[in-house]
């Protein structure tokens, strides 16, 4: 049991100290590249021999970024910029920012003027991603990222190394999917613990994270399974990392049994399959991605996907965690709501923001939801 506790503590420590992780890698003479959301090609950064470090911003007061963004832009973008301006990424060689939503496009444009010592590398993804012309454009986008990284760091790209990196990332994807399922048998692992495991993956080399997760699964399987009386929840949204929100879920005996959250399982749905080159493999991986609000899908498959998760994991209900001002999610919410209503699946919408300090309204909503689910 102590092994399990220590293992979880490790995840919490890393998840809560990205700056320390950055310093650690820099002290090891490693180059670090900041990867903004979403679907940033970390494999390429890794293949060039650098550490890709994810960022989803932080729960902080926005001050400097306000001179760039109006108040109605998603707080993930605002806080990423705020961290950049405050020097929290000091020492990083570059930042890669994809442009899959309108706010992300603005983050890249604002970054150029506000954080001049960390070069902005854009990754332009296609929405018509499944056709051959879409895959070719994805590949061209990756090639541009490679050229910019080589220029920023003086290091060079090798496709064979990319293939090796892809294998590391595929292994990590698989272990994260396994972990998510495994946790369902262990209700004592809290929502906060679960989030720490997912969040810490952004701040570590994936091979290190895979090893830690494997250890955790090993510790878990050593413990005796206990009766699970928790309320089973599926979460969906962009981000479910707010400490207060997770605490409220835990206090209300809710267990996240599956998620379609952008910063959690959504990024691990698809593996890169073998192809002629590593870059082709990576381009096809993006083409295969789906069930995400920032990826075009005329069938709105995300709605059925949510319903299917509830069915597969026998969940009691869905909590849609809306990151305020995220319009792709706001459009999908309506379709998910309809799909849940058709299947009589209880759904709760909670709105969160990186600058929220008072979660009492969320608490009331979750408590009421709990009563409904009982």
């Amino acid at each position, binding site marked *: 049991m102590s092994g399990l506790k220590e293992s979880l503590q490790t995840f919490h420590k890393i998840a809560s100290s990205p700056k320390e992780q950055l310093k650690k890698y820099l002290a090891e003479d490693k180059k670090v590249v900041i990867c903004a959301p979403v679907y940033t090609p970390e494999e390429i950064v890794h293949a060039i021999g650098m550490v890709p470090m994810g960022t989803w911003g932080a729960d902080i007061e926005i001050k400097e970024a306000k001179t760039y963004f109006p108040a109605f832009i998603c707080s993930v973008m605002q806080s990423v910029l705020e961290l950049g301006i405050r020097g929290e990424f000091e020492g990083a060689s570059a930042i890669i920012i994809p442009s899959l939503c309108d706010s992300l496009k603005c983050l890249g444009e604002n970054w150029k003027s506000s954080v001049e010592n960390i070069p902005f590398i854009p990754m*332009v993804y296609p929405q018509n991603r499944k056709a051959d012309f879409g895959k070719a454009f994805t590949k061209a986008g990756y090639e541009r990222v490679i050229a910019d990284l080589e220029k920023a760091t003086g290091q060079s790209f090798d496709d064979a190394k990319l293939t090796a990196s892809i294998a590391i990332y595929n292994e990590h994807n698989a272990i994260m999917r396994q972990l998510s399922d495994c946790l369902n048998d262990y209700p004592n692992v809290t929502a906060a613990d679960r989030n720490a495991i997912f969040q810490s993956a952004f701040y570590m080399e994936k091979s290190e994270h895979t090893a830690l997760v494997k250890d955790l699964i090993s510790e878990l399987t050593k413990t005796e399974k206990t009766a699970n009386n928790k309320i089973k929840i599926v979460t969906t949204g962009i981000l479910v990392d707010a400490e207060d929100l997770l605490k409220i879920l835990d206090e209300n005996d809710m267990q996240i049994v599956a998620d379609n959250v952008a910063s959690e399982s959504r990024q691990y749905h698809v593996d890169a399959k073998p192809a002629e080159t590593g870059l082709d493999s990576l381009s096809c991986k993006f083409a295969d991605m789906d069930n995400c609000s920032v990826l075009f899908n005329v069938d709105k498959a995300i709605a059925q996907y949510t319903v299917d998760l509830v069915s597969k994991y026998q969940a009691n209900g869905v909590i849609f965690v809306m990151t305020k001002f995220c319009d792709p999610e706001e459009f999908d919410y309506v379709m998910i709501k309809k799909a849940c209503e058709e299947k009589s699946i209880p759904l709760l919408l909670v709105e969160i923001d990186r600058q929220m300090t008072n979660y009492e309204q969320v608490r009331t909503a979750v408590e009421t939801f709990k009563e409904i689910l009982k």
Partner: protein
Amino acid sequence: MSNEVKKKSPPDPNSAKFKLGKIATDAYVDAQAAKDRGEMIGWCSSNFPVEIPETLGLAVCYPENQAAGIAARGGGERLCNISEDDGYSNDICAYARISLAYAKIKDTPEQNMPEPDFLLCCNNICNCMIKWYENLAKDLNIPMIIIDIPFNPDYEVSDAQVAYVKAQFLEAIKQLEELTGKKWTEEKFQEVMEYSGRTSRAWLAATSEAKHTPSPFNGFDLLNHMAVMVTARGKKEAAEAMEVLHKEYLENVETGNSTFRGEEKHRIMFEGIACWPYLRATSTGLKSRGINMVTTIYADAFGFIYDDFDGMVKAYCNVPNAMNLEHARDKRVKLIKANHVEGLLVHTNRSCKLWSGFMAEMSRQIAAECEIPHVAFDGDQADPRNFSEAQYETRVQGLTEIMESKKGGC
């Protein structure tokens, strides 16, 4: 001081205003007539290449124009409320909320449109467009054809982007041919391209007449005429009407007339989509201070001049909301310098995250390079709840004071 040009009633059928207004109105009438004949009609996003439906002979309507019309006639809040009752956040673009509500209720006193059989979506204006059209397609259970033109973070459009977008143009044509039975012909495309070029040249020439002091037109005219540029550029009627517009502006220059009423004391650039529910308030706030909004980015943005299919593809990659800050800035700087602009008035549009998301920094860079003051006000293109007339007045007053002070006034 310019002489006033009084509005005539009824309008002169030979005037550009009448002709342009008729083109905008006919778009709805023609689409309904096509629908009544049993033809398939589409709803189309504003920056979708009009050359495609035009060459194929397909009638299309523009939900953005409809939403602007509904908002200008006072129906914005009512329709937004219908969408919000269905679960749409009031944070979502008001055009989208109005359009999704209309797709549900199918009838409004402000502006009706025939029901669509297909949707044509292009996201070179914003990615919000994709989400909006996805939901329309799902609700109406009709096909959606998308041309994805990604935001370009570089100054120039890359060969890779042109290849990607061109492939989608060809794919969209193929899909539409299969869906509607209409056929693409090179001859018709050449004709459409010729009209589009004529319309664009006339538009650019007309709007460039703002270089004269006083300007021969009130810049608010551009906000109205822009609809024709976006939606009907490839039509013969549009080319002719824009040529009349240019001729009228030239005549105004010669005679010292202007469609701007009163003395033109100051010349500003307006940034952003109009606040349609408050067109009168925003216009009066300027006019009462002798401020003429002589130019907007529309003046430059919708002049599509190209020589062939590839040129057309590239032109659509270079529309305002698809270009990076530096490119967007330089286009505005060019307009400001060419038209002797003294101040920049920015509409921070609650509906448009992309347009407003890096406008603050762009405004600073423009103001520094052009040595002009800039102010911003909060508003919305269609939801009346997001605009405060008092704030607008205060900001315009502040801008006026700085412009006066720069001129040596008190």
